[in-house]
């Protein structure tokens, strides 16, 4: 809301500057977002009186105007069509900075004395555009007759405007009077009340207004006025409206807008000639009913919407906007002024349904004091009669069946300290509440002090003790609150195991050279289709999880078509990230620990599973002094997952070959812990690499369900005492059939070595004619150690024998050499 300071100071006496007012209001909950100054650059511009206008001796279209500035008289050459003797005008002396009237952009120029067609011109009579007030440049700005000659224009027309953010709770501050009340309460001064007309003698309206929907319209005041003459409103009113950001239209519409800005009551004026039977019916819209609103749009109404109608059709959407056909025109002579109170929820629903937000609806949906409409009507009548003394009020209706009275509220005085942690003297509290017009009283009974107040009806936001305490704190200022720490701490709870796991996972991967990314967890169906290497629609699995049978978690109002649903897998966002990063980095390794959102049913919230996604692309090893460059492959991602899972305490993760719609058929695996699957990993299928446009020969990915990992059971472990005897390393070359998985061979060796085997490491694979076709030789280095002795030669022989036996029995292998 824009608050012109000059206007505000008329409503509340204060010596504070605009900046100080802005600061005080900001601290009290009304944030001053900006302060702008109208006339900041008006040096050397004064109020002048045009005394004489003569023809220019050498030009037909120009005139010579003699302007009295009080202490001097100057002559200027002007081409303004509307200049006339007797006018008060803004007059700029040379040196003044004015906006260029002929330039489309706001360009400031400095005025210099000038000779135009042989006559010297010693200044300029300014248009609104030259002063920066508007784009109007047709003629000069004519000031009020009362403007004092010789006064600097800034002192007369200059204004500062504070732009306030009005939070939704502050309905009562959405007006000049509301802000004036705040300033009065904050500074201890008194706000002035605007002059109101007396309507008590006016003829009752009889059947003028019928309210058929009292639930949505607690009050409706209608005032009929005759002998209206529609014309522009006076300059002072137009200026105030403009400063407050409302475009002046005509005297009647301007009065309704002025009252809305001043008191916060939205009003509407109807041309009564165009109301059928000249009367108002407040009712719900009929099914299929339509109305063309003032913005020339035909609106479809529904029976949930409240309308203002005449005897047979809707003429306005209550609290939102008036209709075409009964609006004020230059021919209007009889008007019906509406000043009403509508249900705030209803106005909001209607305004949202029609996507039509107005100054009026913005105020109604915050709630309007039901005691305000008649005051506003009286104010509007006073303003209209000030402008047009011949206007008569011929009828007044005020339908207000259930008057609202001030709310009584009381609380123990100690409540202030209970909430704030500080108490204030009774006199201070009473004074603040008095300034807020709360009529406070302190009562004491059995040693307990109670404070009770009557909350004014315009303060619908104050309904409970906490609200009342806030009022006290707000006016004294939050800066008076001390800083303290809570007295007692709760018993420290355990750290959530999932958070602990997530931290370990993140730290381990960072140490392994990967960088964490955070991606948008929404995607669209195409992203999922792109995960299918076969290219025949949605894949059977979304990353780790199977494709669910129920629809995915889908947005009703997605921000963009690419963000339609919550991801069921981390992969698409990860792959898009990799595709971008690999353009700029030769080696990309990224991970994200986020959630995937698995739908359960339309009746339940989705299952949000904490999930790890990893993506590797480009080269895993860059060329340097010590290494050849090496492109990423399956064993990079496997190594990371293996290290990660062991790091969190799983002794022996198992990897099983799988087929997966997104992965390379020969390089895809599932990782299991104690037989429970916890994730997938592998190289991306070349088709999927192409779908996502990743410029990398191979892409390694993994998706691990962290909850499954946690639930698979990270077993408690105990330390094992370390042996002081030196371990012995023994090499084994084992020949097996080509199809035997290396993991099975290693398992056989471990079984053979038993408790004495501490490490089993594959270091070579050999294939050759010597072995025969379909055979391979795997070379292992096995570390053997006993806790209590150095192993003797015969013991080592016995272990070799056992390993040979296990290898033979489990994988059909033989020991070479």
């Amino acid at each position, binding site marked *: 809301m824009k608050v012109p300071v000059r206007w505000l100071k008329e409503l509340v006496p204060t010596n504070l500057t605009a900046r100080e007012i802005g600061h005080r209001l900001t*601290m*009290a*909950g009304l944030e001053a977002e900006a302060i702008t100054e109208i006339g900041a650059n008006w040096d050397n511009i004064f109020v002048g009186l045009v005394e004489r206008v003569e023809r220019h001796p050498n030009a037909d279209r120009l005139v010579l105007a003699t302007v009295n500035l009080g202490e001097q008289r100057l002559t200027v050459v002007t081409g303004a069509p509307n200049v006339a003797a007797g006018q008060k005008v803004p007059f700029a002396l040379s040196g003044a900075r004015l906006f260029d009237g002929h330039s489309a952009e706001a360009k400031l120029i400095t005025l210099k004395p000038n000779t135009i067609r042989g006559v010297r011109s010693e200044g300029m009579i300014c248009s609104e555009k030259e002063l920066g007030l508007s784009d109007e440049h047709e003629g000069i700005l004519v000031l009020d007759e009362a403007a004092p000659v010789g006064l600097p224009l800034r002192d007369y027309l200059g204004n500062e405007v504070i732009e306030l953010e009005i*939070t*939704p709770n502050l309905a009562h501050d959405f007006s000049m009077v509301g802000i004036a009340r705040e300033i009065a309460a904050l500074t201890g001064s008194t706000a002035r009340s605007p002059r109101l007309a007396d309507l008590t003698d006016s003829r009752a309206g009889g059947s003028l207004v019928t309210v058929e929907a009292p639930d949505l319209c607690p009050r409706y005041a209608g005032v009929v006025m005759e002998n209206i003459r529609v014309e522009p409103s006076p300059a002072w009113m137009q200026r105030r409206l403009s400063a407050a950001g409302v475009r002046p239209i005509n005297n009647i519409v301007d009065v309704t807008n002025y009252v809305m800005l001043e008191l916060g009551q939205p009003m509407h004026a109807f041309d009564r000639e165009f109301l059928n039977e000249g009367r108002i019916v407040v009712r719900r819209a009929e099914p299929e009913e339509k109305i063309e609103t003032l913005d020339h749009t035909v609106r479809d109404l529904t029976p949930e919407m409240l309308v203002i109608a005449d005897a047979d059709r809707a003429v306005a959407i209550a609290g939102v906007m008036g209709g075409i056909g009964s609006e004020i025109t230059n021919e209007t002579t009889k008007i019906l002024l509406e000043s009403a109170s509508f249900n*705030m*929820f209803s106005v909001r629903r209607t305004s949202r349904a029609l996507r039509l937000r107005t100054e009026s609806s913005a105020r109604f949906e915050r709630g309007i004091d039901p005691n305000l409409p008649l005051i506003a009507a009286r104010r509007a009548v006073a303003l209209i009669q000030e402008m047009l003394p011949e206007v008569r009020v011929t009828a007044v209706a005020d339908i207000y069946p259930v008057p609202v009275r001030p709310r009584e509220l009381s609380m123990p005085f100690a409540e202030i300290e*209970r*909430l*704030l942690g500080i108490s204030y003297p009774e006199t201070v509290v009473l004074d603040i509440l008095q300034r807020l017009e709360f009529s406070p009283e302190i009562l004491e009974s059995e040693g307990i002090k109670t404070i009770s107040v009557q909350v004014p009806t315009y303060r619908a936001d104050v309904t*409970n*003790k*906490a609200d009342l*305490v806030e009022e006290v*704190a*707000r006016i004294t200022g*939050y*800066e008076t*609150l*001390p*800083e*303290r*720490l*809570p007295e*007692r701490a*709760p018993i*420290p*709870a355990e750290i*959530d195991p999932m958070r602990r796991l997530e*931290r370990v996972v*993140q*730290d381990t991967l*960072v140490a392994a*050279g990967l*960088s*964490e*990314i*955070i991606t948008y*967890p929404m995607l669209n169906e195409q992203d999922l289709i792109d995960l299918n290497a076969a290219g025949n629609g949605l894949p059977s699995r979304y990353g780790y999880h199977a494709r669910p049978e129920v629809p995915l*978690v*889908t*947005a*009703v*109002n997605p*921000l963009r078509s690419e963000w339609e649903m*919550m991801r069921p897998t981390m992969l698409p966002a990860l792959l898009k990230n990799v595709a*971008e*990063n690999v353009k*700029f*980095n030769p080696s990309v390794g990224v991970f994200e620990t*986020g*959630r995937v*959102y698995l739908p359960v049913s*339309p*009746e339940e*919230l989705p299952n*949000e599973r904490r999930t790890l996604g990893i993506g590797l692309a480009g080269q895993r090893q860059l060329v*340097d*002094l*010590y290494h050849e460059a090496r492109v990423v492959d399956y064993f990079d991602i496997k190594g990371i997952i293996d290290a990660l899972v062991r790091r969190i305490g799983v002794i022996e993760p198992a990897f099983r070959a799988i087929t997966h719609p997104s992965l390379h058929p020969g390089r895809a695996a599932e990782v299991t812990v104690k037989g429970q699957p916890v994730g997938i990993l592998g190289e991306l299928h070349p088709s999927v690499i192409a779908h996502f446009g990743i410029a990398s020969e191979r892409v390694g990915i993994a998706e691990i369900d962290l909850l499954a990992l946690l639930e698979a059971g990270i077993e408690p472990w105990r330390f094992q005492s370390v042996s002081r005897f030196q371990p012995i390393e023994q090499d084994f070359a084992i020949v097996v059939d080509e199809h035997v998985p290396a993991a099975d061979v290693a398992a056989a060796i471990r079984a053979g070595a038993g408790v004495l085997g501490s490490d089993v490491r594959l270091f070579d694979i050999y294939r050759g004619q010597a072995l025969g076709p379909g055979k391979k030789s795997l070379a292992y280095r096995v570390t053997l150690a006993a806790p209590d002795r150095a192993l003797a030669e015969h013991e080592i022989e016995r272990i070799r024998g056992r390993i040979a036996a296990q290898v033979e029995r489990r994988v059909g292998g033989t020991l070479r050499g």
Partner: protein
Amino acid sequence: MHLTAQFERRQEELRASELTQRLEAESVDITLPGRTPVVGTLHPVTQMIREVTDIFGRLGFQVVEGPEVEEAYYAFDALNIPKDHPARDVWDTIFIKAAKNREVVLRPHTSPVQIRTMEQMQPPIRVVVPGRCYRYEALDATHEWHFHQIEGLAVDENITMADLKGTLGEFARQIFGKERKVRFRVDYFPFVEPGVDFAIDCMFCQGKGCRTCKGTGWIEILGAGMVHPNVLTNVGIDPEKYTGFAFGMGVERLVMLKYGIPDIRAFYQGDLRFLSQFSRPALSEAALRG
């Protein structure tokens, strides 16, 4: 005997000279690059969440989390933001398709976890809630539709606004330096009363007024207040017996302020050239400053 001794001495000399030769031959250009282990980077948002939750952890706050796809009841109604109230407009919300009788949203703030926590725990309660939030909001340099918040909640007997001010002051000084001044001003959030906007004096101009603080000398860090009695009633906690405070902050904003990042969109574009700049832990600076 004599010969043996001589032989041994000669042998010793040879060994020594051999070693000297070897050491000479093995000398390298020690300015050649080392074999550097590659270390990655934690996302700056993760780093800030850790820093903030660690600070509150030391103040006795426990970390809890909640769902991102949330019932409107938890996201709004239970937080004293009734349907059709203009306060609901403050949160431009992304809605989720659900059965007819239900309203499900992407949580626009972490505040619903206040409700879930109070439903499950009895006072004394002291929790912080980090997490992702979503708004129906066009992207620009200062607005993201997807962002992170950290919510805080303390409920007990004798929790006052002075406790809130002290707790937040402690937090701000640990994150932004112990010389920081703090400011409380009145603000409105439907789920607190009285409501607070919490600011610190601008660390870029020391409160004199600059572009970052828009000339005000103050930088708004978070919203806070005393838990609204209606909210306590909604979760079955007696507002006559208990009071509480709550606060919520945007994580990205904290990171942006701390490192002078002008554009919030950088966080989720995922460019490694941006992210790798955060490889020094956020903590080191504050730790060094003491």
